[in-house]
């Protein structure tokens, strides 16, 4: 079903702006501001005239026009609230993917209280720092395995007391969720209710409305049923929904699952099918269903299943593993996929000082590919050495690639030497190049008349390399 709404275009957005070209938003004209709005580089709130009452109607119109085809849903409250969805494109190169896939870790209400508290703390304090960003786990999914409403409600409170992360309350029995929601401290945190099904949706709708909580709509492997349900729920006045098409991790059903995810997202974005314009939830934790599972292979499996779902439009995942080796690649993939492809991949070339180097200090070299650069600089700074780092312009390519592709050459190095005035900084005429650029040693020596030392292949080895090999004389 096509939406009757006006599709946002540069002109249609411009038409509803005040057209005063006042510049208060920082853009030189309303037309430029319109293009920033479309690129998500500005928000309507940046336009102060638009906030005036006389523009109320235009504001409403623009809000509607600029709403992403996949609704943005907020779970939880306050600074730990998690925003999911808000997607606008099928491929990240078309714009960028907004709102990284949230990751919830499951807790069963049959676990011992102490274990529950420990697990909460472990989830909340989990931090992985990569390229200057703190990667975290985002939520707790509480599963009602006990079938006991009071136990479930008790554990929900226990989690609420132990950590600040938003909750997903999981049970297909509305009466169980109800007892938990009757506790004010739980309902006030606006947990995600999981889940409305073909059978229980009336009761779930009542809970979702009464307690003003977002609701997951669960229709395993059935898009038509899913559409029926979201359409019905929307008609009853529910707006914050998350959709779950079931999670199948192997065999033909995995194929259908992946196809379903693509079809749902494509229908939402390209057909503007409003019934399907909601964030998608997948449960990699299902790999832990079964008898006598080997914990290592299952953890491994959960990580690549989770990755597959991140690759295919999942906005929210529930995972079970807390194995660090299994979570690191998943969080790294999420970081990769959700970086803005419009941002430059390179840093400025030039000379950096690490610590307080003098004219006897080592001189190292790396490329201006942002990832290489940040990794190298992090390693050097954390190792507490004093030295110089030359950042050569390889058009934003990594060492190995730019050596092969001819962006990293002795001529680049020579030019960089003169532009930073290297002769005035160090006296020793020795340059350490990355191990992966070893084959440029001769060329650079010929071009600069400096002695070239081949450093380690990975910057984590720089400290020990210098300790063993460096002498200015």
């Amino acid at each position, binding site marked *: 079903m096509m939406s009757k709404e006006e599709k946002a275009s540069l002109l249609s957005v411009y038409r509803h702006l005040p057209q005063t070209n006042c510049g208060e938003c920082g853009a030189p004209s309303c037309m430029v501001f319109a293009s920033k709005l479309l690129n998500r580089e500005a928000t309507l709130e940046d336009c102060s005239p638009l906030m005036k009452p006389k523009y109320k109607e235009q504001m409403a119109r623009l809000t509607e026009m600029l709403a992403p085809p996949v609704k943005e849903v907020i779970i939880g409250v306050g600074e730990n609230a998690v925003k999911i969805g808000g997607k606008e494109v099928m491929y990240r190169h078309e714009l960028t993917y907004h709102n990284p896939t949230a990751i919830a870790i499951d807790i069963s209400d049959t676990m011992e209280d102490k274990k529950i508290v420990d697990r909460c703390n472990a989830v909340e304090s989990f931090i992985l720092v990569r390229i200057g960003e703190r990667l975290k786990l985002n939520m707790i999914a509480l599963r009602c395995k006990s079938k006991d409403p009071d136990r479930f409600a008790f554990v929900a409170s226990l989690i609420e007391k132990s950590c600040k992360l938003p909750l997903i309350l999981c049970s297909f029995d509305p009466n169980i969720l109800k007892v938990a929601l009757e506790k004010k401290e739980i309902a006030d945190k606006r947990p995600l209710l999981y889940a409305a099904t073909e059978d229980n949706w009336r009761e779930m709708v009542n809970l979702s409305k009464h307690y003003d909580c977002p609701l997951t709509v669960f229709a395993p492997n059935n898009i*038509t049923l899913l559409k029926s349900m979201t359409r019905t729920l929307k008609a009853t006045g529910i707006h914050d929904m998350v959709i779950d098409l079931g999670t199948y991790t192997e065999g033909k059903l995995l194929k259908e699952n992946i196809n379903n995810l693509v079809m749902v997202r494509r229908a939402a974005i390209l057909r503007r099918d409003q019934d399907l314009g909601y964030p998608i939830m997948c449960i990699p934790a*299902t790999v832990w269903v079964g008898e006598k599972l080997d914990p290592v292979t299952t953890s491994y499996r959960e990580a690549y299943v989770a990755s597959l779902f991140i690759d295919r439009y999942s906005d929210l995942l529930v995972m079970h593993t807390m194995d660090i080796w299994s979570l*690191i690649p998943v969080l790294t993939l999420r970081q990769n996929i959700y970086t803005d492809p419009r941002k430059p991949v390179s840093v400025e070339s030039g000379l950096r000082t690490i610590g307080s180097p003098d004219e006897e200090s080592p001189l190292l070299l790396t490329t201006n590919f942002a990832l290489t650069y940040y990794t190298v600089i992090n390693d050097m700074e954390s190792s507490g050495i004093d030295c110089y780092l030359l950042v050569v312009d390889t058009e934003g390519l*990594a060492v190995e690639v730019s050596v092969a592709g001819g962006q990293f050459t002795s001529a680049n190095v020579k030019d960089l030497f003169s532009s930073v005035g290297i002769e005035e900084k160090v006296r020793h005429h020795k340059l350490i190049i990355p191990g992966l650029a070893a084959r440029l040693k001769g060329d650079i020596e010929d071009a600069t008349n400096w002695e070239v030392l081949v450093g380690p292949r990975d910057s984590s080895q720089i400290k020990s390399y210098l300790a063993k090999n460096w002498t200015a004389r």
Partner: protein
Amino acid sequence: MEEKETKILAKNLIELVEKFGDIEIENVEIRADELTLILQPITSSLEQAPHLVSRVIEKEIETLLVAEFSPPIEVYPGEIAEVQIGATKSDGGSRRKVVKIGGAKSMPFYSFEATDQNKPVLAVDVFDMPIKLAKSVKQHFKDVMEDPAEWAKKYVEDFDAEIVSLNLISTDPLIKDTSVKDAAKTVEQVLQAVDVPLIIGGSGNKAKDPLVLEAAAEVSSGERCILNSANADNDYKKIVKAAKQYGHSVIAFTPMDINNQKKLNRYLLDEGLPKEQIIMDPTTAALGYGLDYTLSLMERIKLAGLLGDSDLQMPIVAPTSNAWGAREAWMKSEEWGPRELRGPLWETITTITVMMSGGDLFMSSHPATLRVVKKMMQNLYGEVESEQRTQDWISEIQG
């Protein structure tokens, strides 16, 4: 439905509401698209009695509204060329079977709109001299690393490898400067040791690679190997000539740039090499080290080909064993957990992601990656029945 009719219906409904307060439409199925049409005029025309409207909307729904869904299928004007790797006796070679890649008519694994595409394939990395490998890979091959033929054999026999990618790195003048003749001999030995198709790679030395690949092409004449690689910096004409003369395909390598890839492909096409003998290598970065650029690059290339850009309609090769360059894959670290697990998982996830973004042929190295990715492809192609019985993960997850 005509707009006029809608208004009449809406009016009737309003009158009903005014008359009876709440109306019960239990067990009456309203087609959902009718409902939206009815309700919208009411909400806009009934500002005087919004409370009534909300009662109508929210109370009447006792059964699910009906919805229909048809798959959002797109038809692309272009398609990706099919490349055959290897030749059996009947084609003039000596391989047990051939492997075909490419032929896509849609984006990867969109089987709701295009079936019958070739599955991506995993090749394995073998080198003509012992090299530095991550410990978790090395442990499987340390006894065969002196002999590339044995190394290849182990991959094929023990780990079911479908293609061997032989890298003649010792030919690099800065490494061992192995002669062109000796390199060709290595190729012959590997061809004799295994009966799967072969990718033959040079050392990356731009002066020597064309010579090495030319000689390799000659000794493997008729086997439909893949020569790795032609690029803008080496004598690609020589490589193309050898490929044409001896019946091989060529990898066109460019560092991370769609326009350069297109240009290089054009050069090869202009030399008379057909699309069916070209595979693109637009650069594969490791998870965490630029995989996002690779992902978007491959999606853009694949889309461009499907939309009809005939310079980009070749299958894509991805050396996903580059994942081992990531420190998370090999570095010893308490904090990160055992590297024996981290390493293969890093390669597995790199490979899966590249597979979902458009890679057709991978070069990987860890047996776990081979096993997992192969199985996943079979699943994604619907070749395996599912055993999964339940969706009640809430109560059935262990622990």
